[in-house]
Each structure stands twice: as structure tokens, then as C-alpha cells.
């Protein structure tokens, strides 16, 4: 109790806020991972990442709602809800690869400075946001509310405990209810998918031949080339993974926060993603994950425990600024030579 008082948390619903931090952190990490992969392999800060996030959500929406999304709201599903997720992942991945071919490949071939790549990613972002606005209008869209399981899990009134699944659900619901946590099945799905993707990705990068090839190319593309690695292929895969992560983050977010799909849905994450990868260490996969959860925790803490909730973003940016100055490689990053 002493310590809670000291931290300013004595009135807070700690389990619920922790759950909020985990859920936000999963989202931030998932989004930032894609950023981090492209940055680590190609050294590109792809500012169109948030636009891919947004298009991923639209891909998913279009996949399960059919053409009705183009003209108005999605009133009923054409295909099963789950089809939205693979559609967003594949769509986002392909979109990212296309972006690479159009906007980055010519520059890379010419050895253009990083500055140009940043600008061309901005150009792509402008185009994508405007295209989305043209195609889907600026109106916010979402899945039919009845179809998305986003009502919180709680103890049902008349429960049939004969099914083993129901027992598990009851137990879960009881735990949540007792601790004051309110979470919906879809949020749990987001957290699980995010964690699975993160674990899978770290495994791929650390253990598989693809991961090693990616690390080699990230270290020095020329050397990779001399070792017989098809660097362009690796770049393409890196972009695909990055886009797939952005797309999955987009659709999971759209599902969990239904309705949440509009052309500007990526805007607030664009800068946040940047903060996350800086905090974790530019280009570090583990860093992106840690950074995501850290930022979420900080935000939640400032909002919950201090009266400066309105300054949470300012605090995050101050921290970000400070970390850059003191430790530009981030918390988990490798030391960099890009410093005077």
C-alpha cells in the first residue's frame, strides 16, 4: 500500500490498467515490428508503413464484406469474418512489395541517399491515403457490430457447465470479473496473435537460414551478395513481412476497435511507431517489442497515476528525445557508428 501510494496508484484499477497496457503494447509492438524490419534490413525509414496499416484494414474489410464497403457501410458479411485476417496480411504484404518496387527499388539501384527514400515513402503515403479516400470516402467504416465478438467476457447468467469449454470460459470470466478486468474475445485474439507473430518472427530472424540471410544483408548487402544471397529477394521478403505485419496490425485493430477503419487511422500510430523503434533500438526486433510495451506502460501510468494525463504524449516524446541524445542506439540496440 505504501508503494502504491508513492506511485500514485492507490485509487487505480491496477489489473484492468495492466491489461490495457498489454493490449496497447501488443498493438504498438506489432505495428513497430514491421517498421523495424525494413529499417534493419534496408536502412529505410518507411513512413508509408502507417498507410499500409490502414490499407490492411480496408483489405480485410473488403474481403469479408464484399463490395458494399466501397459505397457505404458494411451492413452484412459476404464471407466469414476470419477471412479478413489473411486478406489483410497478404494484401498488406503484397502492397509493401509493390511499394518497394515502385518507390524504393529505383532509388536503391541508383544508390540514392536515404533522404530521398524517406521522401519517396512520404510520397507513397500521400498517394495511399488519398486513394483510400477516393475509393472508400473519408467516412469511418467497420464490420457489422453484431458479427464481431467484442463484448467483454463476463459471467453469463444461465450457464450450462456441462461443456468443458464453458467451464474454461466461466473460469476465465470469473478471474476477469474478480480483478475488474474487462476484455473482449477479440482483444485476447489480438494479444495472442501479436505474441505469436513476435515470437515467430524472432525465431525466424535468429534461427532460420532466411533470418541469417536477412541479418547478413542488414549488416552489409555487398557481402551478402558475394556470399550468393539474392539481396533483392531478401529485400522483397523483408518488405512482405513488414507489410504483412502492418496489415495484420491494421485488421486486428479494426476488429478490436470496430468500427475504426478510415483513411486516417494510421496517422496517430505513425509517430508512435517511430517512438517505439527508437526507444527499443532502431532496427532491433526485440527492441521493437520491448519498446512497444514500454511506451504503452508509460502512457498508461501517466494517465492513471498523475494529474498530467493530458501530457502523456509530451512525456513520451521527451523520453524519446532524451533516449536519442543519451543512447541513440536505443535500449536494446547495437552501438551505432552513425554518430559524430
Amino acid at each position, binding site marked *: 500500500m505504501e508503494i502504491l501510494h508513492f506511485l500514485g496508484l492507490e485509487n487505480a484499477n491496477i489489473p484492468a490498467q495492466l491489461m490495457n497496457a498489454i493490449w496497447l503494447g501488443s498493438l504498438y509492438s506489432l505495428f513497430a515490428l514491421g517498421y523495424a524490419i525494413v529499417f534493419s534490413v534496408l536502412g529505410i525509414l518507411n513512413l508509408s508503413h502507417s498507410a499500409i496499416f490502414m490499407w490492411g484494414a480496408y483489405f480485410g474489410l473488403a474481403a469479408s464484406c464484399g463490395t458494399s464497403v466501397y459505397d457505404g457501410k458494411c451492413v452484412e458479411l459476404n464471407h466469414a469474418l476470419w477471412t479478413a485476417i489473411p486478406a489483410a496480411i497478404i494484401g498488406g504484404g503484397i502492397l509493401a512489395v509493390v511499394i518497394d518496387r515502385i518507390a524504393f527499388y529505383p532509388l536503391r539501384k541508383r544508390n540514392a541517399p536515404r533522404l530521398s527514400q524517406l521522401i519517396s515513402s512520404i510520397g507513397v503515403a500521400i498517394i495511399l491515403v488519398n486513394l483510400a479516400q477516393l475509393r472508400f470516402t473519408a467516412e469511418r467504416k467497420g464490420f457489422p457490430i453484431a458479427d464481431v465478438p467484442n463484448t467483454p467476457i463476463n459471467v453469463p447468467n444461465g450457464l450450462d457447465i456441462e461443456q468443458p469449454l464453458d467451464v474454461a470460459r466461466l473460469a476465465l470470466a470469473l478471474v476477469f470479473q474478480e480483478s475488474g478486468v474487462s476484455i473482449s474475445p477479440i482483444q485476447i485474439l489480438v494479444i495472442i496473435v501479436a505474441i505469436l507473430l513476435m515470437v515467430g518472427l524472432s525465431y525466424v530472424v535468429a534461427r532460420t537460414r532466411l533470418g541469417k540471410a536477412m541479418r547478413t544483408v542488414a549488416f552489409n548487402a555487398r557481402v551478402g551478395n558475394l556470399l550468393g544471397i539474392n539481396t533483392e529477394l531478401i529485400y522483397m521478403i523483408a518488405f512482405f513481412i513488414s507489410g504483412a505485419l502492418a496489415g495484420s496490425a491494421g485488421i486486428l485493430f479494426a476488429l478490436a476497435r470496430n468500427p475504426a477503419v478510415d483513411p486516417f487511422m494510421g496517422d496517430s500510430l505513425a*509517430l508512435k511507431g517511430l517512438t517505439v523503434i527508437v526507444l527499443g533500438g532502431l532496427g532491433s526486433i526485440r527492441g521493437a517489442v520491448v519498446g512497444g510495451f514500454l511506451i504503452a506502460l508509460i502512457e498508461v501510468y501517466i494517465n492513471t497515476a498523475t494529474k498530467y494525463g493530458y501530457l502523456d504524449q509530451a512525456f513520451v516524446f521527451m523520453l524519446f528525445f532524451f533516449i536519442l541524445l543519451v543512447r541513440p542506439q536505443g535500449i536494446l540496440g547495437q552501438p551505432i557508428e552513425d554518430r559524430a
Partner: protein
Amino acid sequence: MWGLLDSLLQPILDLATQLLEPLLERLATVGLSEPVVQFMLMNAILGVSIYLTLNCGMFSLANAGFMAIGAYVGAILTTQHGATLGEALLYGMLVAGIIAIPVGLPVLRLRNIYLAIATIGFGEIVRLIILHFDTLAVEFRDSKIFGPIARPILKLMVEDVDARRLEITLGARGITRIPVYTETAHLVVFLLVLSYFLYRLHHSRMGRAMAAIRQDERVAASQGINVVYYKNVAFVMGAMLAGAAGVFNALATRTIEPKAYGFDKAVDILAYAVLGGLGNWLGPILGGLTLTAIPELLRELREYSGVVTGVILLLIIVYLPGGLTSLMIPSFWRNGGRYEFAKRVTTAGVVLVGLVNVLPYQIDNGRILGYEFWGLIIGNMVIVGLLLWVRYTRQRQNGGHFSLPLMGVGITGVVLFIALALVGKIDHLAVGYYVHLIGMALVGLGGWISYPAEER
């Protein structure tokens, strides 16, 4: 002293106003009204502000933040203290410059993307502080430790320091009722003075030192150039210019709000400079002017204009690496002897397009072409084409080639015209329409012919 300066400047401004009048009228006919021209000029200044840092090899995105500082200083001074434009400009630049010093010292140790990210962070912090300034001011005023320091500073900004709620930046609502002092002549004179300054800078010891730093910082340091000093000077100068643009902006739009100076603006500013080209100081000016004008020129495209703006930005970055000004740099137009024929084809195209555009436009107000609105776009293309022509008559060397931009110009022209006819913006029955198509096709063809065989 202020009065003296004013009386010295006034005749110059009057003269500039008079000279500008016919030009502004002409621009208005293609959709660039006077306010738009003002925003173009402001953005040109912003382009230069970031160019100063980029020219030193520093990839800084802090200028939207400094612009915000300038804008708020200007707005507070004019609304609360009845300051004139000159005073607002002076203090706006000063405050932005002073804030730039403590920011620059630590931040400029970073490089490349790291510097970019750190300055993005700075910009966001500035925006958020301005947004919450009133609340923070009350906090500081009432705090035991900071109160004595904060009070005198706040006195400068607000009459009643002890009020329950302080209203200084007014949060999201922003400051309204800002007088409109910015005139086109002010901006033009400012930009001319700035250009002269930049021209001198380029040929000065400082300019050479900065160029050396951009080339290679370590080498520059080993040659006895004080790298830290010059980088900070460039950063502060850039901040002051951005501050000036902010003051002009605030005193032209009557109202300001923090969100106008956020990340999007920082990115826009960067785009001005890169689009124009970083080869020399003309680039950012040209970039600022063009990129602001494009959406206005494309206003008739309505909801499509955003996409087209993005595509233009992308095309220039991808196919015209040095930005618009690279068209003016001799090395870009290197070519070999086999391009004689290509040259003739292109010349024919340029002459056709030029004639059908410039002459009828003046004589018949565009009726022969079947359009009025698109005159400036076409005019630009003529200029581009002429530049091409001039360049490769002057320089014929081995190495790179200019085929891609030529083809780009040609194809864009043709496609644009067909598309415009399809959407009904151009009367496709007009003679000029076909002459134009042929001319542009010839320009593109010239590019195609001159394209080196081995790279096809």
C-alpha cells in the same frame, strides 16, 4: 531607429507592390490568387530554412516547430502589444533562434536518420507545449520553485498574470483576430534579400566550410574547420528563417492553431527542399513555390488532386534525383554525339508546344487551345523543354543521359492532355489540342531516341 528603417523600406515595398501587380493578375487567371502566391512564397522561405541545415549535411525536421514558435510569438506580439510586422518579424526570428541554440547543441551530435527522428520529437514537443501552454503556465505560476521565474515571463504575454485561467495560446482554439500585415511585397522583398544573402553565403568562407562539412565531416574537421560551430550556426539560421515564415504565416491567416505546425508540416517542408533540389539555394525556393502551387493548379481535379500531388512528388524523387533544379545543372545534360537527331526531334516538339501555348494564350486568351486553366502547367513544361534544349546544345559529353526526364515530360504531357479531354476540362476539338499532343509526343520521342541502346 525603427521609424527610419520603415521610411527607408516603404518606397521599396511600394515599388515592389507596383511591379508585382500585373504578375499577380496574370497568375490569378490560372488559379493562383494572391493569398496562394503568398503561401507559395512563405513555403519557399521554409524550403530555404531546411536547405540551410541540409546543406551542412544535417537532416533536421525541426523547422515546423520553429515555425510554430515564430507564428505564436508574432501572433501574441501583434494581438497583445500592437506590434508591427517588422517588430513581430524581429522578435519571432530572435525567439526561434534563441531556442534553437540549446536544442542544437546536443541534437546536432546525431546524424542522418537519428537526427531526423530527434528533430521530429522536438517538433512534437513544441506542438504539445503550445497546445497545453495555458495550463502549464498556471502550473508554473502557482509552483513555489518556478513561480518567481515564470511570473515576469508571463507578464510579457498576458496582462493579468493572476487570473484563474490564463489565455495565452488558447490551446486548440488557437489565437484569433490576428491582424493581417503580411503583403506579397514583404515576402518578395524578404525572399530577394534572402536570395542575395544565400548567394553571398555560397561564395563566402562560411559557405565553403559548410559545403566541406556536408562532403565529409571528419575531413572538414581535419582541415581545421570548426564543425560544431558551423553546424550550429546553420541550424540557428534555419530556425530563424522558419520563425520568420511562421510570423508571416500567422499575420496572413488571421488565426493560428497548433495542429497546423505538426509533423505533416515538417514533412511538407522537407518535400519543398528535396523536390526543388539541394544542388543550390534556388532549389528549395523553386520547390516551395511549385509544391504549393500544384494543388491549387490541380484544384479542378478536386478529390483527385491529392493523389496527383503524391504521384508528382514520387515521380520527381524517383526519376529526377536532383530535384527540379538539377535540370539547370550542366552535368545533368551530358550526352554523346549520337543525340543530334534526338535533339532535332525534341526541339521541334518544344517549339510546337511553346508556340501553341505562349502565343495564342497571350493573343486569344487561350481560346485556340480550348482551355485557360492549364496554361501554367503547360507553360512549365515549355520551360522544362527549353531548359533541356539549352543544356544539351551547350554540353555534350559522355556519361549519363537525359532521356528519362525528356520522356517523362513528353508522356506526362500527352497523358495529361488526353485525360483532361476525357474529363472534359479541355475542348478536344480545338486545334491547339492536337498541336499540343504532337509537340509533347515529339519531346517524348526525342527522349526515347536519345536513350542509350545498352540500357534499353
